[in-house]
């Protein structure tokens, strides 16, 4: 019973480099979420997929951030021209049902990718 996996676990990038972060959700989970967690803070919503459709990207902080889930399973969060303020842990979560809020929408989180931009 594999949970949500993310790779790489740690990423160090020089300012200006592009990075790609991968999320493997639990098999069969319809919904996939990306969150950004700054040090000592709670996660902040970035974007949401239902299968392959990106239904909400309102939390993406700039047009340098791009996410995709082309086949409705694995997702990639790409950050172009990284800046120091992008340093954070990026969490991926998946849930079985279509996102509708409430107690039937438990989100299962991966361990995160810690991105450090120098």
């Amino acid at each position: 019973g594999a949970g949500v996996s993310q790779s790489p676990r740690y990423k160090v990038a020089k300012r200006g480099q592009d990075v790609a972060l991968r999320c493997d959700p639990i098999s069969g989970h319809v919904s996939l979420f990306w969150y950004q967690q700054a040090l000592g803070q709670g996660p902040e919503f970035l974007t949401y997929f239902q299968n392959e459709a990106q239904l909400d990207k309102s939390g993406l902080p700039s047009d340098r951030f791009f996410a995709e889930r082309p086949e409705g399973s694995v997702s990639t969060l790409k950050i172009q021209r990284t800046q120091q303020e992008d340093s954070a842990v990026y969490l991926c979560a998946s849930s079985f049902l279509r996102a509708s809020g409430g107690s039937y929408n438990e989100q299962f989180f991966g361990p995160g990718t810690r991105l450090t931009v120098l």
Partner: protein
Amino acid sequence: QQQVKQSPQSLIVQKGGISIINCAYENTAFDYFPWYQQFPGKGPALLIAIRPDVSEKKEGRFTISFNKSAKQFSLHIMDSQPGDSATYFCAANMDSNYQLIWGAGTKLIIKP
């Protein structure tokens, strides 16, 4: 209106004691209030959750108390154990909106 305020920021409790973490919210449309537990290097994991139609929910040593009129809810950990040492997050959302709004977290340390 969208914020969830969590306190304290950190908490040290003796083994066997009661740990209490508090959260307050403004948006009266919130109707789902989960607590997540996060260990270092791991993602958050759902611990316990409550809807505002009940004032208390208990699961083992973990209890959520909910005060709708005060717009506050709290997590109580009874007989706290060293293995409970972790960061705890409260969160909230509306049934029509899947986005979870998170508190800032409480780092709990249980001293043996």
